[in-house]
């Protein structure tokens, strides 16, 4: 039973991170390889807002989440906007450089040592007993609930809201979208904002549960196979991919060797790329654009 709880928690973590990769890829065909760093930045922002708003943990949390959204939009507007219409590869390389830069800056500002935003916010993290004898920490449960809420909101947003529909339109045919008066820069900035918001949220909840240091980037990187296995342009695919990767990882850790943990996602990814390179639910013709 505990095994399944662990899978659910890990899958939620991956899914919450992976939807950020999917959002940006789906509207602009850009792989954001700085997503792990941006996610970590989100949790460091929480550390800072926690010390700014002592005694107001909810305010600190909301401020950090909002900041993450703004940071994402700014990254697009000041950095990637110049790449729009150029080769996708140039944009992807820019995100790589951004990631390296962010990592350096974060160490400079917040140091590389392990930190605990939960203590700064003054929240406890008691374990909750589940039927069947399994246990789950409060923030892990919160993470699962947040992932569900985020995916639900994203589905509703993309299907029913005007801006959501415009985002899908721009992803399918940017030229026509521009011809119909849709502001591509607006749509892309929104995608970056939402992506960094969800990634930041994942980072914050993760840091609340188990502390925060430079290794968080690795988790961001491990969510990337989850997005790819599902097919980079599909949210349902990201959900499915996260579940597969998390299940494979937990089972192998449990039955074979805990040291496999960091390798498993990429093993699954390679297997997937050999069998079905466009992912479980991805669009086949998208492949040549990666």
């Amino acid at each position, binding site marked *: 039973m505990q095994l399944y709880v662990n899978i659910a928690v890990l899958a939620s973590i991956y899914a919450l991170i992976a939807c950020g990769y999917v959002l940006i890829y789906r509207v602009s065909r850009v792989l954001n390889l700085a997503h792990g760093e941006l996610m970590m930045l989100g949790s460091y922002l929480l550390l800072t807002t926690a010390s700014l708003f002592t005694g107001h943990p909810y305010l600190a949390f909301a401020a950090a989440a909002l900041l993450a959204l703004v940071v994402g939009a700014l990254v697009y507007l000041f950095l990637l906007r110049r790449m729009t219409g150029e080769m996708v590869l140039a944009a992807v390389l820019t995100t790589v450089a951004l990631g390296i830069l962010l990592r350096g800056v974060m160490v400079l500002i917040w140091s590389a040592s392990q930190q605990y935003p939960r203590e700064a916010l003054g929240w406890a993290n008691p374990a909750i007993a589940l039927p069947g004898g399994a246990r789950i920490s409060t923030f892990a449960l919160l993470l699962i609930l947040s992932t569900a809420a985020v995916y639900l909101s994203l589905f509703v947003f993309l299907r029913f809201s005007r801006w959501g*529909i415009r985002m899908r*339109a721009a992803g399918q045919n940017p*030229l026509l979208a*521009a*011809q*119909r*008066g849709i502001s591509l820069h607006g749509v892309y900035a929104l995608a970056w904002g939402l992506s960094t918001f969800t990634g930041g949220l994942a980072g914050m909840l993760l840091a609340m549960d188990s502390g925060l240091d430079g290794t968080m980037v690795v988790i961001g990187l491990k969510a990337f196979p989850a997005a790819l296995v599902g097919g980079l342009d599909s949210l349902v695919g990201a959900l499915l991919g996260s579940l597969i990767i998390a299940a494979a990882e937990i089972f192998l850790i449990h039955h074979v060797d805990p040291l496999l943990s960091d390798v498993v996602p990429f093993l699954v990814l390679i297997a997937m790329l050999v069998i079905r390179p466009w992912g479980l639910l991805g669009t086949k013709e998208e492949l040549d654009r990666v």
Partner: protein
Amino acid sequence: MTALLQVEQLEVVYQRAITAVQGISLVVQPNQIVALLGTNGAGKSTTLRAISGFLGLDDARVTEGAVRFKGERIETLSPQDITRRGIVLVPERDKVFPNLTVAENLIANAPRGMTLAERRRLHELVHQYFPKLAELKGREAGYLSGGERQMLAIAGAIVCGPALLLVDELSLGLAPVAVEELTRRLVEIRRELGIAILLVEQSAAVALEIADHGYVLENGRVVLDGDGPRLKSHPDIQEFYLGGSGERRSYRTVKQYRRSRRWYG
């Protein structure tokens, strides 16, 4: 009366090497339907792209001449700014969002400076002109037939509230009934909404049926122009575009055709 659109001596070069349009001049008056005729590669699409500003994506540039819209020079404006001023293009290919439903295709459009009421009215009108689209509103646009797709593309352009509609290849790949329906709608749209239309067509018969004025392009130049009836009765048009007399010959080999340009050009 100032012309709605005035193109003067327009020259467009692709990749700094291929001159696709070499000094085209044309005029669209308010509330007019103007046809641009010509065979493959004559430069019709390029002209429309130049007017709507979407040239940079194909690495093309306007190297000479001017495009005036309501008196203002627009050839150096960004595509977004041109769209905002009221020129909307229905492109030759990729004219709908394939994975959006018909209804979503219409909602996605982002017209500027229109109130919600105006927007609603245009949506209603579009459904009056094309009742089929209301029936198909839940269908993904990628599964539409060619005629339905063209309807959706025109409807999508109309809800952007254009003053000038550019339509590339109205009848391409469509059955005669579908084409007739579309042209009838365009005439209605022009009459009721006061939208001017610049129409690119391979089929002179279709275009000259509804056009007030027509231009015939060949190798990036205007070789013939005149009002609809006059072009229709012109012997060269009769022979080479309407299939009037006997076997098809290449008009490039006919000297009389070259000579007759001077009378009109």
